[in-house]
């Protein structure tokens, strides 16, 4: 019996902690409701679709094909990204360009997002800085797997 009585103090302490959280947070919510700002908000929740966290600069989001100054993609279809890709989700069809400075362009550039593991190796491998993962798009949901294969036009941000 004495052992059980011994934890009465701890039980009271637990209830005090939760009630402190309750009353402090309720006070913060109430102050926020009447338009006063408190040093900390009543809840740590981020109301997701309306409120978003700022994305860290190194965050890897959906790929973006970078354009030249005239608007054409920087990519020269060197296939390094497709080679390095561990999940083999990039496929490139090369085409010719009349400009002797460029010569090769991708006539088709697809990324199968159903396979992509967002490792960022393609970004590391690219010698032309033509692909980056800084579009900030986190929700790439589609209705079928086929629609998850993004074409060059989808990726040119």
């Amino acid at each position: 019996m004495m052992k059980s009585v011994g934890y009465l103090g701890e039980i009271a302490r637990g209830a005090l902690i939760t009630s402190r959280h309750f009353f402090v947070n309720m006070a913060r919510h109430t102050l926020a409701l009447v338009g006063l700002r408190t040093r900390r908000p009543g809840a740590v929740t981020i109301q997701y679709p309306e409120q978003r966290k700022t994305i860290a600069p190194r965050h890897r989001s959906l790929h973006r094909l970078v354009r030249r100054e005239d608007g054409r993609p920087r990519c020269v279809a060197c296939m390094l990204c497709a080679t390095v890709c561990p999940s083999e989700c990039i496929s490139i069809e090369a085409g010719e360009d009349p400009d002797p400075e460029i010569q090769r362009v991708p006539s088709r550039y697809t990324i199968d997002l159903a396979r992509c593991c967002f490792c960022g190796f393609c970004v590391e491998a690219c010698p032309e800085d033509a692909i980056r993962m800084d579009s900030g798009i986190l929700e790439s949901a589609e209705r079928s797997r086929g629609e998850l294969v993004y074409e060059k036009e989808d990726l040119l941000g």
Partner: protein
Amino acid sequence: MSETLIVLVKVVLSVVWLLSLTLFLTWVERKESAVIQDRIGANRASIFGVRVFGLFQPFADAIKMMFKEDFDPSFVRRFLHALAPFLSFFCVAVTIAAVPFGPAVRLWGRVVDLRVADLEAGIPFILAMLSLGVYGILVGGWASNNRFSLLGGMRGAAQLISYEVALGLSLVGLVLVYPSLRMSSIVAFQGGLIFGALPRWGILLQPLGFFVFFVAALAETKRVPFDLPEGESEIIGFYAEYSGLKWGLFMMTDFLEVIIVSCLAVTLYFGGWQVPWLGPEGFRFPWGGGWALPRVAVVMLQVFGFNLKVLLFCGFQVLLRWTYPRFRYDQLMDLGWKVLVPLGFLNILGTALWVGLK
């Protein structure tokens, strides 16, 4: 004829009160737990874009539950399986009949008590009905024909019966102090004063008894520190084979029990509908002075006071539920038989000595 009609209206009103408070309590549970854990909680249920802190969430939950498939596994005993949730729901809900909501009022030239039934044996009736609630658990576990459900039902029955003893013992002290077992006279008695200043509430006369009563009553609600019958997170409980609205009835029974326990604690230990220093003519303060109020205002204050006390108790129970981890089974039995029952006896002994010597 009109007497029957009045009783019918009172039955309907008290059931409506109970069920709407149950719905509200599901929202309170979600929101209060969220605030305790620094979250926001369910706030997106809306009607035409109106959210009001997610107060529509209970309706959304109810609609979801009604349209879920009510699946009967092929191996259950069909009749008992369907009967069990109704048994446990009924036995808990019917105890509201003995709870007084307010004083007698004069309506259209006749005196109407704000309670369904003024039973001679109010306390034994409530104890009896709460004990019958065990059948819902046992029958549910048995009829599910699943060994884990059966074990859950057995655990539940053992727990409820153990704590029933402590609950009964804690109430014996009250019976010694109060003049009668009738709920109305218990509440009327608590309208008096002790030392000419403090309201004569049960908590001040029986602090130890209240402690035993409240812990035992918490165990009767089968909620988290004592949720061994259900044990939803890892051990499988007695309603594993239930789904849809039948499961919903078990869930509602839990919330109902919280309300009933709050009603009992308020009625037996916190003065029922009595507001401190509020008499039939208005406030009369022990330090002199007073504040005369019309009869209507007094009755409304008293009914409001009862509801406020019940809500505070419900909130307190939700707080406890979100504070403590579950007891181990041997700890549960230790607490019941080795702590609460001796404390209950001690309380009876002390109360008897006090009453006898006075």
